């Protein structure tokens, strides 16, 4: 170790290689995978052909109105209908955002569902969410839903400590009775295996899944049970080599290949308690789970769920195409969320007000030369958000020039060069050196100065 084993000759070049096949800028950076991945399971090497992700029909599902709402003050009916409308636009005509789920318990819950369906969108399909109680299927049936999620918690923390079942068998029998009631009502059950990453997989989960699969064989395909793997506490681990019950690859393998649950009936639902939520969802996609369950901006119980907009960009990066997704709806959704009092942190990826704002003068200099140096992709095209520079004592003349050009909307040859911004740059520096300022300078202050120092530009570009 530590001793060089292979020499690496310099590939000298006089022109840059910007690796545009991976970083096209007009799309998020593409994710190119070389399959297969080998994972050792039960002592044997198992292959996962991750390169098939480009052609596999993977989807995003949404739980903004269910898990997403559990952590927030309730939305009004109108707010939910507007969000649903934008979700539909975001997911596009191919239904990349395939389903979203609704509570059904209150009059308002049911009115919301009705109003969303009145919009006539094909996607996201509306599904329900109920407790594992037979009587609740009446609600699902009355609302005319084809599918509902139901709690089938599977760790002993839940089976014994929370639900107080006398035995695991009694628990499974009870769950299966509810599943049978769903079949009888003509409703497809989606079993939410709560706390699966803390469950006895061989001793409880797999026998339960075996029973569900047997039951599913007795009903038409469209009623067969779907399985949602709920990483309730965010314990799931994406690394190859991790052990059950925390290993996402092994969990999916067991359900998919040992129990025979098809990929299109497997869904991953994560939580962000250990900052792993997005990558765990993507890992589930790669290892054979077709659906990742998400919420807008990751709002959800405690630390939240996989952020829908993160899954959207992951999807495009894996597919190499927008597949009909309207990414501009993300910005509209973020603005809407802010307008109804739901804060999104400034530095939150893709949606925070400052996600593509640089404060460093040296980065602003890079942006001035070629936007691609410091912008993750064409954020103006995909999100309607050109890269910005926040002005502080660290911004330098480059930062000030960038701000001024953005403000006046100047591009190419029309851009004001660094020399001509010296008055504004001096004013900025003096704010800190002479006035002892400690805060960033607001756009409003800069606008006033731009008007004072550059009246000819103001007249031409702001008054026109």
């Amino acid at each position: 170790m530590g001793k060089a084993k292979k020499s690496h000759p310099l590939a000298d070049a006089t022109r840059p290689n910007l690796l545009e096949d991976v970083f096209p800028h007009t799309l998020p950076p593409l994710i190119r995978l070389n399959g297969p991945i080998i994972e050792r399971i039960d002592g044997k090497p198992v292959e996962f052909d991750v390169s098939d992700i480009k052609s596999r029909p993977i989807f995003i599902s949404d739980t903004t109105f269910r898990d997403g709402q559990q952590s927030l003050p309730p939305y009004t009916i109108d707010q939910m209908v507007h969000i649903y409308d934008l979700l539909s636009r975001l997911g596009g005509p191919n239904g990349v955002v395939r389903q979203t789920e609704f509570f059904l318990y209150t009059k308002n819950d049911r009115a919301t569902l009705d109003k969303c369906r009145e919009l006539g969108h094909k996607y996201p399909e509306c599904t329900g969410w109920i407790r594992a109680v037979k009587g609740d299927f009446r609600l699902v049936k009355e609302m005319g839903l084809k599918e509902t999620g139901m709690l089938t918690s599977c760790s002993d923390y839940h089976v014994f400590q929370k639900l107080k079942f006398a035995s695991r068998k009694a628990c499974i029998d009870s769950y299966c009775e509810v599943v049978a009631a769903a079949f009888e009502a003509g409703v497809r059950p989606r079993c939410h295996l709560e706390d699966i990453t803390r469950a006895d997989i061989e001793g409880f989960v797999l026998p339960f899944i075996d029973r569900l699969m047997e039951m599913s064989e007795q009903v038409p395909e469209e009623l067969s049970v779907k399985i949602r793997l709920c990483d309730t506490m965010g314990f799931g681990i994406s690394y190859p080599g991790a052990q059950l019950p925390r290993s996402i690859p092994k969990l999916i393998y067991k359900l998919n290949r040992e129990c025979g649950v098809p990929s299109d009936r497997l869904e991953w639902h994560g939580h962000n308690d250990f900052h792993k939520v997005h990558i765990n969802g993507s890992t589930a996609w790669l290892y054979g789970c077709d659906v990742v369950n998400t919420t807008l901006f990751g709002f959800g119980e405690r630390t939240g769920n996989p952020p829908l907009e993160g899954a959207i960009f992951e999807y495009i990066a894996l597919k190499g195409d927008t597949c009909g997704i309207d990414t501009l709806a993300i910005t509209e959704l973020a603005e809407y969320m802010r307008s109804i009092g739901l804060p999104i942190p400034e530095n939150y990826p893709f949606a925070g007000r400052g996600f593509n704002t640089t404060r460093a003068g040296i980065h602003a200099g890079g942006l001035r030369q070629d936007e691609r140096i410091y912008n993750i992709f064409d954020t103006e095209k995909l999100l309607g958000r050109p890269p910005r520079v926040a002005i502080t004592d660290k911004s330098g003349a480059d930062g000030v020039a960038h701000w001024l050009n953005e403000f006046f909307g100047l591009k190419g040859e029309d851009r004001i060069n660094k020399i001509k911004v010296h008055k504004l740059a001096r004013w900025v520096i003096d704010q800190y050196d002479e006035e002892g300022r400690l805060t960033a300078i607001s756009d409003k202050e800069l606008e006033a100065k731009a008007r004072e120092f550059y009246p000819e530009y103001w007249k031409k570009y702001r008054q026109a």
Partner: protein
Amino acid sequence: MATVAERVKAVTARVLRVPPEDIRPEHSFTEDLGAESVQSIELVAMFEEEFGIEMDEDAALSVETVGAAVKFITNVCKEQGVDVEE
């Protein structure tokens, strides 16, 4: 009429707030005369104003010493038809 060198020295003294007699042709604007980032921009802007010329931003900012600035400005003045005393 003052020479280019005298005018460069006067502008430099005013912008960088150093006595003109302390400025020498071999002095670096940044290392010897202490020009900070924004002051370098101000210097170029003030030279443009003083001589009534427009300079290429990158080329002008890459000039390091007072003597080199005198030569650079003299050339730009010639290119842009501005009469100056050498």
